[in-house]
């Protein structure tokens, strides 16, 4: 269940261009978080909290890792926090990835830019359950690449950059035909990427994680709705999502 928590910053590092990795300590969230969920972070001087995906969890050390890009004033300010500081967060928030593995053999993870982080904890968890994992990670350019080796530890990993400065040049969609067979895909990244993927892989079972500007982050304000094929006609990204079956949402 979602709860208001204080998380102590254990460490904070810039691991790629404008990209910060923070390790946060909190027993409640590390205990309860599942892949695909996020934490909703209060940043001083800001009215709205910032949603950031849970990129990894270490239950033994009671830590949660997040990775975020300095984009605007909120993430910029957040990046100035130091080890020892506390973050005011709500979490674990939202519904995570479907991880029932019955009959599952191979999965494909497709992460674009700042959509890569939630793929990491997911892939790691699936690999632990002996699922064969393939990862396709897309970044803007060489400077933005992160976590390649970490993904390689549990998966065959393809990296593409938009400008070709590292790995293959192009978009994640250009690599997908080459990765071989898989039963299910999971994806998180910018909307145009998700649209292309869900179109291209419309025959496959897929789960995607969506982004939207949020108000409450708990399901109360209706800021983050996405139209769906369900009877109600919509779902809330913050509480019903951010993860959805690819077929259920209308992008």
């Amino acid at each position, binding site marked *: *269940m*979602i*709860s*208001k928590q204080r998380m102590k910053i254990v460490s904070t590092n810039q691991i790629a261009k404008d990209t910060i990795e923070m390790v946060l300590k909190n027993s409640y969230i590390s205990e309860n978080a599942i892949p695909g969920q996020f934490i909703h972070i*209060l940043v001083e001087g*800001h*009215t*709205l*909290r910032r949603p950031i995906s849970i990129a990894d969890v270490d239950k033994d050390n009671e830590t949660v890792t997040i990775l975020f890009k300095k984009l605007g004033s*909120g993430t910029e300010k957040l990046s100035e926090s130091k080890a020892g500081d506390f973050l005011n967060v*709500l979490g674990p928030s939202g519904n995570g990835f479907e991880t029932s593995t019955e009959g599952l053999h191979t999965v494909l993870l497709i992460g674009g830019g700042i959509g890569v982080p939630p793929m990491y904890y997911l892939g790691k968890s699936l690999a632990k359950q002996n699922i064969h994992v393939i990862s396709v990670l897309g970044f803007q350019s060489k400077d933005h690449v992160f976590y390649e080796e970490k993904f390689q530890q549990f998966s065959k990993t393809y990296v593409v950059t938009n400008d070709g400065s590292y790995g293959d040049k192009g978009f994640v969609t250009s690599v997908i035909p080459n990765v071989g067979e898989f039963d299910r895909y999971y994806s998180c990244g910018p909307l145009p990427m998700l649209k292309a993927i869900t179109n291209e892989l419309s025959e496959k079972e897929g789960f995607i994680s969506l982004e*939207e*500007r*949020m*108000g*409450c*982050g*708990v*399901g*109360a*304000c*209706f*800021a*983050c*709705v*996405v*139209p769906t094929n369900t009877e109600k*006609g*919509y779902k809330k990204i913050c*509480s019903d999502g951010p993860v959805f079956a690819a077929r259920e949402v209308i992008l």
Partner: protein
Amino acid sequence: MSLLQVNLPGLHLKNPIMPASGCFGFGREYSQFYDLSKLGAVIMKVATGSERFGNPTPRVAETASGMLNAIGLQNPGVEKIIENEVTFLSQYDTSIIANVAGSTIEEYEYVARTFNNTKAVHALELNISCPNVKEGGIQFGTDPKMAAKVTEIVKKASNLPVYVKLSPNVTDIVAMAKAVESAGADGLSMINTLTGMQINLASKRPIIANKTGGLSGAAIKPIAIRMIYEVKQHVHIPIIGMGGISSAEDVLEFLLAGASAVAVGTANFSNPLICSDIIDELPTTLERYGFDAVEDAIGKAVMNE
């Protein structure tokens, strides 16, 4: 804690704190954080005659000390609200206020009449910041005559006390307040959001899909205080104050300006426990500034004149 008690038409509040309409859904989500029985009342998310999907996204944007929203009256419709939401909220020992809206006077009337048949709702809050589709989209809340008309019709359609929620986007807030008072309003609720806009420099378009959105949060507090202070001098019905409240001190400022109770909106998003926290802190805050009870503080700044 009888010092927190406030009595308003139809509402016997154990304390003057309630979440503002649209910022608390129908309470379900926030009931994960604390016991809603703690609240003076809950003002529910808007109800219209039938289900509405609302505006395209993005629906919110952040501004300096505030936010813009253009949710667009999304709600399941008055019947479903009574069936599912009022039933849920009724389990708590708190008053329930229904926020009523429509695109026509008839829709307001229908929603008000429908709520009238349920015992569980204690009062109506009339959201007049809606475009009147039959009058070329002019908002009910920016024209004293239209505001009075819809108030009158709703009063006839319902036995529940009616609090008319005023829009701040007007030249003369006192004229609006007087118009709805004369039309039979039992109380006022003020202020709704100020119309604003933010432009995305990269896309060169308004961030909010609906282009304009309603500005709320601490940024608008001085405007809310001014309007309540002005209105309090000219009307005799009580005021539920709102606009940027995020602390017990803010609550006291609204009481002094003339509010008899308050609603907390945007601050729920920064702190889901804000209403509960304020209720805890209010007694000490009142005492620190020399008040034995909430009722003693109401309108004190106005009476000081």
